[in-house]
Every structure is written in C-alpha cells, then in structure tokens.
C-alpha cells in the first residue's frame, strides 16, 4: 500500500483502497430485463398502429398495380386474391405478425422481389447517409451548443441559435430542392457542382478509391440537407443543458480553486451537461427517419426511405411493413440505449 500511496495511480491500480462503492454503478440485469420488456411492449403497440395505418391508406393496391391497363373484373378479383387482399383484416394482421416473427415479409408487389433482399440492398445506403449526417449534425450541434450555451445572449449565441432554428423550420423537401437546383443544376454563375441524384455514377469504376470518391460526391447534397435541418435540435439541446449547469455552485467552487474559465467549462460544465444532452439526442434519432425518407426521395438515394416512398404510392403493403419494422425497431432500440447509457454514466441514477 505504501508504494501505491505515492500518487494518483493508487486509485486505478488493482489493489485499490477504494471499497466496493464504485461497483454499485453497474446496472442490474433485473433492470435491463424490465427495460427490454418495456421496449418490446412499445414495439408491439407500434406494430399494431403501423398495421392499422397501412390498412387505412385509401388507394387500392390492386388498382395501382394494374396500372390503368384494362383488366376485367375477374382478373382484378384474381389479383386481389393473389395479394391476399380478399381476406379479413384480422387474418391479415395475423399474417403480418407471423411475418414479423419470422422476419420474412414475402414479396414486394411493386418490385416483385423478396422484401428481405430489397431491404438488404437499401439498408447500406441509408446507414451511410443517416450515419454520416447524424455524426456531422451531432458534432456540429454539440460544438455550437457548447459555445452558445456558455455565454447565453452573446453575439455567437444569437447568431447560431437564430440560424439553426431558421433552418430547422425550413421544410426538408423544399431545402433539398433548393440545394438541388442551385448546386446540381447550377444557377447563374454557380456551375453544376454535384450530381443530381443516385448514389454512384455508372460510368465510374465500381471499385476502389474512384468509387469511394464518387459515392462521397453523391453524398454531399443529401447529407447537407439532413444536417441543415437537424443540427438545430442538437444545438438547442446542448445549449439548454449547458445553461442549466451554469447556475451550479460547483462551477464557482472550481473557479475559486483556480481553474480558468475554459477549464471550468471543459472539465466540469460540459461533461455534466453532455450526459442529458446525449440522452435526449439519442431519443431524437427517431426524428431523423422522416427527414431521411424525404431526402432520399428528393435525391433518389437508393435507401430505405426511397423504398418507403415508392411503396406508399401503390401501397406496396409487404414492403411498407418490412421497412416499418426496421424503422420503428431501430427507434425503439435507440431509446433503450439512451436510457441504459444514462444509468451507466450517471452515478446518481442507480438501479
């Protein structure tokens, strides 16, 4: 023990003089189980609601699939039977449940491919777009939020809060179209800088660096659109979380100990404000889904959002059900992660 006492490392070393208190911070399995069960419940409720909403879509899928070709009423009835539309809604709901449990949603009516393979090829592009946009939006929002929240009312705060909220209130569709017109088609002196849509150029070699650059080039505008409309949330969350911390006396204590302003911010205020902020940001990830669908549609990005958009027009029920399960499932998982994260990181909340 004497050797360990010489410095700081004593506490992190194995033979620590620290009793078991630190270990109490773990989340118990019991809690985890309860929370997971709750998530499952809300997932089921979401499924029911989703199913009802899809069944309420007014247009008739059989009609849209027939595409205004002249079909006899018999052919129409045949098609309906094929699609399973002649069955009662209760039977269809149980089919749907079975599909969810087996993970097999059958064939898309529109694409005439299995829903699984459609989703499989669309999930990568969506993860790429949403992942990149979320990372940039969170990093930008947090950074601006910290700067703005540390000196609320300052010029920096007013400028960035104003800008962010303005962009936030702009419809995603409109912003996407504007960016498309200005930077893809080109306006006045602005040349066409970025491709108008899709994820890659078929004339570019599909492998290696050239391909990566090509995809990155296509990614710029959709990503910019998503970041522009979402970073405001992160900024405002971080800002208000930090403003909440400002009044705390421990910041005064830290200053009185001799910490400089920037140190007080980095060591005390920001880490403490970050925890609730990150939690709320995780909860907001669900909000990105709507934006992603619109953005993918505007830029013909071959992801899940575009599938949903194309599926709604029919409505292609198997496809919609499959993508819905993916979207709602991931939102619920994010909520679960947010909750567990909070408990792990905050010593005051213990299971």
């Amino acid at each position, binding site marked *: 023990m004497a050797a*360990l*006492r*010489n*410095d*700081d490392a*004593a*506490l992190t070393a194995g033979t620590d*003089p*620290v*009793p078991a*208190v*630190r270990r109490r911070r773990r989340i118990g399995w019991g809690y985890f189980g309860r929370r997971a069960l709750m998530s499952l419940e809300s997932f089921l409720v979401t499924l029911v609601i989703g199913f009802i909403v899809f069944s309420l879509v007014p247009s008739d899928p059989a009609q849209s699939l027939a595409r205004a070709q002249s079909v006899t009423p018999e052919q129409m009835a045949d098609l309906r039977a094929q699609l399973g539309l002649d069955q009662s809604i209760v039977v269809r709901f149980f089919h749907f449940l079975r599909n969810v449990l087996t993970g097999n949603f059958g064939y898309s009516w529109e694409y005439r491919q299995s829903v699984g393979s459609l989703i499989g090829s669309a999930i990568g592009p969506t993860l790429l777009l949403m992942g990149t946009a979320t990372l940039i939006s969170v990093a930008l929002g947090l950074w601006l939020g910290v700067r703005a929240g540390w000196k609320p009312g300052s010029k920096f705060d007013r400028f960035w809060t104003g800008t962010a909220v303005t962009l936030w209130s702009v419809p995603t569709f409109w912003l996407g179209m504007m960016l498309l017109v200005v930077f893809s088609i080109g306006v006045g002196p602005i040349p066409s800088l970025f491709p108008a849509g899709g994820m890659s150029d078929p004339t570019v070699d599909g492998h290696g660096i050239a391909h990566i650059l090509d995809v990155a080039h296509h990614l710029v505008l959709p990503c910019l659109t998503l970041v522009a409309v979402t970073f405001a949330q992160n900024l405002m969350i971080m800002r208000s979380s930090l403003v909440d911390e400002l009044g*705390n*006396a*421990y910041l*005064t*204590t*830290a*200053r*009185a*100990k*001799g*910490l*400089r302003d920037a*140190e007080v911010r980095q060591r*005390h205020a920001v*880490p*403490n404000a970050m*925890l609730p902020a990150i939690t709320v940001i995780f909860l907001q990830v669900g909000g990105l889904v709507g934006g992603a669908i619109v953005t993918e549609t505007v830029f013909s990005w071959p992801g899940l959002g575009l599938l949903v958009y194309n599926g709604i027009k029919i409505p292609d029920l198997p496809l919609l059900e499959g993508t819905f399960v993916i979207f709602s499932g991931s939102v619920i998982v994010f909520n679960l992660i947010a909750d567990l994260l909070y408990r792990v990181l*905050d*010593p*005051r909340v213990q299971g």
Partner: protein
Amino acid sequence: MSAAAIEVPGPADVLEARNLRVTFSSRRSAAPARAVDDVNLALGRAEIIALIGESGCGKSTLARALVGLVKPQGGQVISQGAPLKYSKAALRQHRRSVQLVLQDPAGALNPRHTVYDLVAEGPRLHGLTGNLYERVCTALTQAGLRPPEQFLARYPHQLSGGQQQRVVIAGALALEPSVLVADEPVSSLDASARGEVLRLLIDLRDTLGLSALVVSHDLGLAWNIADRVAVMYLGRIVELGTVEEVLLRPQHPYTRALLSILPGRRSAQTLTLLQGEAPDPAAIPGGCRFHPRCPLYAEKADDPRAQWCRERDPQVLPALSDSHLVACHFAASGAPDNPTAPPASAVGA
C-alpha cells in the same frame, strides 16, 4: 478568545480589504448597484470574523471579491501583505491561499466526481501531485471524515449534508490555505450538522492556525464561533469589534435593531423593528445610509446632530483589529457600555 496558538512568521493580517468597492451596472437602470461600497476589513492569523447583515447588503459580494472571483472597481485586496494583482498567475497563487466554502454543499460539489477527485482537484491544478493520495487523506481527516479511505470512492449524493460540507472543506484544506472564506457555510444544514461544521472551523483555527471569514445572517452563529464580528449595512461595514463588544454592547442602531429581534433578548431590550423598504444598493441614501430606517435618528429629530445623519456620511471605518468601531454620528461620541438599557437612552444621552 482568539487562539493564536501557532506562531508563524509573516504579516499579522492574512487577508485584508482596503477601501474595497464592487459595483454592478445593469443595462436598464443608469445607476450601478454599489454592492460593496468602501470596505476596510483585516483578517488576522488564526482569527475568525463573522460578517453579518441583512440579505442583499453585499456580504457574498465582499466574500467573492476577497477570494478574487470578482474584480473590485476600487480599492485593493491585500493578500499575504501584498496587493492582489489580477493576472492569471497571481490569481492562481491567491486562490491557493484563500479558499472559498459555499452555502449549499450539494451544489458546490460536482455530482459526477468522487470524493477523491473532488478533494484532489485543487492540488492537481496547483501541481501538488506528489503524495496526492496522502494529501487527500490528510485533508479528509482534518475535515473530520475518518477513516478517509471509506469516503474516497463515494459520490456526493451518497453523503449527508454535513459530510458533503466536510468534503468541500477538505477540498479547500488540501491546498493548505491560510484563509477560508465561508459564505453561509451551514445555513443549508440541519441543526446537528450545523454545530459539527462550526466546531470544525474552530478546531481548524486552533490546530492549523487557519483564519476564516464566515458570512452569515445568523447572530447566534457569530456568537458561537467568531473572535470578531463585522456588521454590514448596504455595502458598508457599520460596526466592528470583538464578539462581546458587538453582540453584548452594540453601539450602532442597526446592530441594536438586529439584536433586538433575537428571541432571548426581547425581555432585556426594546424590540426595534426596522422601518422602511429593503435597501437598494443602486440608490444608497445620502448622508448616513441608514438614516431612512434608523430608529435613533427618528427619535433624535430635534437634536442638532440629526442634521448630520441626513447630510454627512459617517466616517468609513478603518481596518483596526483592536478597537470597537461604529459608523454612527451619535455613537461615535462615546456611548456608555450598557447592554441592558434600551437603545434610545444608551446613546447620546
């Protein structure tokens, strides 16, 4: 009463305010708030001074200025015999020797740091990392958290209010300061924890020779722990002396009014309620700043000196530590030391 048991070379006064002025200018009103308006106060080695006064009279602002958290608009803070410079290095040095203890320990401790990190923060910052573990344990022991090892890994929310305040004090002690400036250190604690923490401050004075300025609006607290008492009114010290002098033989009408509302004293002294509005430091009355509310002035309306109350600011009290000082035109003429007589007849008769 002062237990200057430890003889250490150096200046007799460890911390001093010299003609200190702190003003806050708000955007709306033109007149700045003179929260601290020309204050002299010297804290001796191993001395506890209680600073008392109504809410809003500038006690916390004076405390923060002494710690160097607020830069004064006028006057000086004398730290270890030399005027405090507001350069980063000088401030850092100053903050090692003068430590702040705040009212609400739950808020003053970062909730996500362990006791070890909380106490070690100051030493780490000031580069005192050799023997850090030992230093932290010593500080915790001195603050009465024994055995210290038991507390190291705890978080503030796992401690009682009294223990939390001891951790705050340990965090201060870890820097081996010469002065604690404590802003209402016990007012958020329950009665038993209150007594323990006050006892601790006295012990620290006696064993370590630590000086303390304890801000409070509780006269009983001042009586229990202080060597001297400074009474503040609207940014100015109006009475200064030993506990016995100020609390048993108060001379300033304001001090008398404060004392008269103590429950135990009601029988001995006439209850004097302060008249008028709560004072506004942005509009300090001319003449004696207390005259609109002063019961003595109200009574002495015919006395020729009453005119002084309206027109002349009583002299700013110097930072003398060996006399009983009163900033009042009537009391200054030498009032009889008669604690039992009602205030009106005690002064200027």
